[in-house]
């Protein structure tokens, strides 16, 4: 089946204006008749909830954290891109659009990305009006910094806590609506199923995480803004609670899951220190401006880094990519670190680490200058590792950071299930096979503040069916299924903990479907995952009650979904016989080891349809048609 993207016709730069001119509207008096269920309260969910409520819709918003302010968008450090051209350095909407398409290795949808670049400028204005304390220059105007994959300075930031400040802006807008009674907020509430009535998304089943009560909510549309699936790898920079459950349940109800194999590995994270480790911490990419990456030239060199003379060091990024050097893009820098460690040259516990050395920069600029630039990062590094990076090089290693894949959506951000909208990291649409730095915040807020409020009106104006009663049989069935699953998880009384299973699954997926993938490894993973899943359902040990706060039970449900989702991830990676962006298949590389795309055969979105646990999902293709952009091979040499 070929999917219809519903991108408006006409010149690229006019598509969104044309859409807005031609879309149908809902008059103010009628808006209050519609109820929207929004799952997730990060940048995308909170901005959508606030904006729809401001417009007059009735909104219910759900999050599993104790407050909407804690969603994982809060952890984003670096910044948010916008095509303001405040620097007078040649930026434009087209350039931001083009950088994003190219950064995504020509695997994103042109129309969506152009719209993203168009509304980026409105996001900054909106956030400033809300009181987001962006960094400023002495003249009082907004400051910018540069980020990877761009030759202009277009990243707005608030110290190293841009995600926090943008999320608090959206949270405050949402709080205002909660105070006004237009949004009903459900914190500590987890969505456990999507309910379809006559093929349309009309409700959800949720669990109150404090009382354990299962209940249904009906609405005219369901919006999923539930983030990415990076925790399928167990260790990632994601928060502990991040999960695939909401999107995966929607997938099981018929929504297509697109490009799950596009996962982003960030090159500069603090390495794993032992089996106890529960998460990995990102160190900002900006460190690579002054740090030099190296490993010893010979395997098994146990000397302290400061005792290894220059001649015995391999500054491999500078050697392989002389023009970009230590600032090679994320996917390339990550793979090079892996290669060095695979060759036995890695440093630190387990040999999975490379040095990021500031000694040259300290000699050149002085320790004070380095402290001024990166002091907070050096402190964070010391807090976690106990090592002083002014005196010895940092040890870094790549870690899972972001997932570009997600539920398939059309230009309206609506999935193939009518009435089911998907925003932010949870959808697949804007980043192709690789996301550029400072673009995730942009997309989350674009979707919630400036896209969904238009497209959902267009949808409501052309639908007849209204909010169903939760007495409908579809709700009762879904509730019973959810309850039965919880009962099952609590009744197994096996010998292994949920964490233990999650760790094993994560290691398998990381080893076989991580930074580099190949046919044999993926097939091995696909053979082992079902067996592990089977063991999970026979041997997991989840204690406690269903009718109480039970963190182990919550986690068990999420890991159970990862056990199925991991198979889809590997299957997609196996089927995509090319390398692009974050998806690197060892069989498909250029002579010098770079990713080799196959535009002839794989220039499409792979949108998978569910067909039962253990059954092969159905592949649907949306061809990627580039009307304005010419596809090229990326080069950073």
């Amino acid at each position, binding site marked *: 089946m070929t999917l219809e993207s519903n991108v408006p016709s006409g010149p690229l730069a006019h598509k969104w204006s044309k859409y807005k001119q031609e879309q149908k509207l809902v008059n103010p008096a009628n808006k209050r008749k519609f109820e929207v269920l929004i799952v997730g309260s990060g940048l995308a969910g909170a901005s959508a909830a606030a904006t729809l409520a*401001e417009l007059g819709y009735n909104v219910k918003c759900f999050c599993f*954290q*104790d*407050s909407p*302010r*804690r969603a*994982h968008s*809060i*952890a984003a450090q670096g910044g948010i891109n916008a095509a*303001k051209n*405040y620097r007078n350095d040649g930026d434009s909407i087209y350039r931001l659009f083009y950088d994003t398409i190219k950064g995504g290795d020509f695997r994103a949808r042109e129309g969506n990305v152009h719209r993203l670049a168009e509304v980026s400028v*409105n996001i*900054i*204005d*909106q*956030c*400033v*009006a*809300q*009181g987001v*304390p*962006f*960094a*400023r*220059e002495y003249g*009082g*105007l907004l400051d910018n910094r540069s980020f990877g994959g761009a030759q202009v300075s277009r990243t707005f930031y*608030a110290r190293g806590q841009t995600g926090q*400040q943008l999320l*608090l802006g959206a*949270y*405050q*807008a949402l*709080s205002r609506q909660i105070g006004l009674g237009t949004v009903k907020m459900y*914190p500590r509430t987890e969505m456990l199923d999507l309910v379809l009535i006559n093929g349309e998304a009309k409700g959800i089943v949720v669990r109150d995480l*404090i009382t354990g009560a299962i209940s249904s909510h009906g609405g005219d549309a369901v919006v999923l803004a539930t983030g990415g699936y990076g925790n399928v790898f167990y260790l990632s*920079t994601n*928060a*502990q*609670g991040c999960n695939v459950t909401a999107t995966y349940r929607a997938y099981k109800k018929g929504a297509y899951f697109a490009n799950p194999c596009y996962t982003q590995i960030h090159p500069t994270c603090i390495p794993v*220190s*032992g089996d106890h480790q*529960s*998460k990995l*911490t990102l160190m900002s990419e900006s460190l690579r401006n002054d740090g030099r990456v190296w490993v010893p030239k010979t395997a098994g060199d146990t000397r302290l880094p400061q005792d290894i003379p220059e001649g015995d060091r391999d500054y491999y990024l500078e050697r392989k990519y002389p023009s970009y050097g230590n600032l090679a893009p994320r996917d390339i820098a990550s793979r090079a670190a892996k290669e060095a460690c695979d060759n036995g040259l890695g440093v630190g516990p387990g040999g999975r680490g490379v040095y990021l050395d500031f000694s040259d920069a300290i000699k050149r600029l002085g320790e004070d200058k380095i402290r001024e630039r990166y002091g907070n990062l050096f402190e964070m590094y010391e*807090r*976690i*590792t*106990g090592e002083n990076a002014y005196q010895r090089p940092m040890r870094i290693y790549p870690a899972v950071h972001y997932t570009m894949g997600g539920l398939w959506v059309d230009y309206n951000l609506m999935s193939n299930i009518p009435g089911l909208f998907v925003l932010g990291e949870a959808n697949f649409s804007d980043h192709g096979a690789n996301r550029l730095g400072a673009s995730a915040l942009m997309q989350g807020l674009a979707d919630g*503040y400036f896209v969904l409020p238009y497209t959902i009106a267009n949808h409501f104006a052309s639908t007849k069916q209204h909010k169903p009663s939760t007495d409908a049989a579809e709700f009762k069935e879904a509730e019973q299924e959810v309850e039965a699953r919880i009962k099952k998880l609590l009744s197994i009384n096996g*010998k292994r903990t949920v*964490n*233990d299973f999650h760790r094993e699954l994560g290691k398998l997926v990381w080893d076989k479907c991580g930074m580099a993938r190949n046919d044999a490894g993926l097939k091995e993973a696909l053979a082992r995952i079902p067996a592990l899943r089977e063991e999970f359902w026979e041997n997991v*040990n989840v*204690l*406690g009650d269903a009718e*109480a*706060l039970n*963190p*182990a039970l919550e986690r068990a449900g999420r890991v159970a979904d990862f056990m199925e989702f991991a198979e889809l991830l590997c299957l997609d990676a196996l089927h995509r016989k090319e390398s692009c962006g974050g998806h690197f298949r060892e069989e498909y590389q250029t002579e010098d080891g770079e990713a080799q795309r196959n535009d002839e055969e794989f220039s499409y979105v792979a949108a998978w349809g569910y067909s039962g646990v253990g059954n092969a999902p159905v592949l649907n293709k949306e061809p990627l048609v580039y009307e304005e952009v010419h596809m090229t091979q990326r080069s950073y040499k």
Partner: protein
Amino acid sequence: MSETTMNLTLRVWRQKNAQSAGTFVEYEAKNISVDMSFLEMLDVVNEELTARGEDPIAFDHDCREGICGMCSLTINGKAHGPLEATTTCQLHMRSFKNGDAITVEPWRAKPFPVIKDLVTDRSAFDRIIQVGGFVSVSTGGAPDGNALPIPKTDADAAMDAAQCIGCGACVAACKNASAMLFVAAKVGHLGLLPQGQTERDRRVLHMVAQMDEEGFGNCTNIGSCSAVCPKEIGQDFISRLNRDFLKASLRAK
């Protein structure tokens, strides 16, 4: 016993739910690596409890990088433990030594009732924001971001306050269970910026009224709140809150 691992005795507050009474229970934490975070140490204890068929210890946590504000814990009587400017998730076990006995409690404050074990209900903070901790601008129609120049010093000072992660350590540390530092951070952040001026009086009056209604105590200038604040938000913001509140109260009459 190598120098990289340690054995500890934990005294952990266990409480089945909001209705039942709680008590301290002792646990041994063995072979704890110095590289573990405090929460990873609790993960290890929980894995062992689960293997023994005992209910694991419930505690709040999410990002584990010191920014979401979900983790809490009063450790040996100090909110977020012994390190300054550090959340519990960023506290590592090398701050402890072999043989230590560590007492772990939930935030203790009436407006933060215990839900289970170490998990408390901090929704009072959300309700304080809901009555005024925002600038009332709806999406769309905002002027250009550079239309309103803001002195860098003001923007930086606003950011100092805006960094608050809403964890509630300030309340837990205060003998009066006062939420003044939390309220002061938001009132200060928005009050320092031109965007926050139109609602400045209304904001402070509503937020303080809600704070009182939630049952938080008053500030008696001890400073424990700033001492435990992971973001080191200073007492000067409380002075600012008091000034704003006084002025707004006078103007309201």
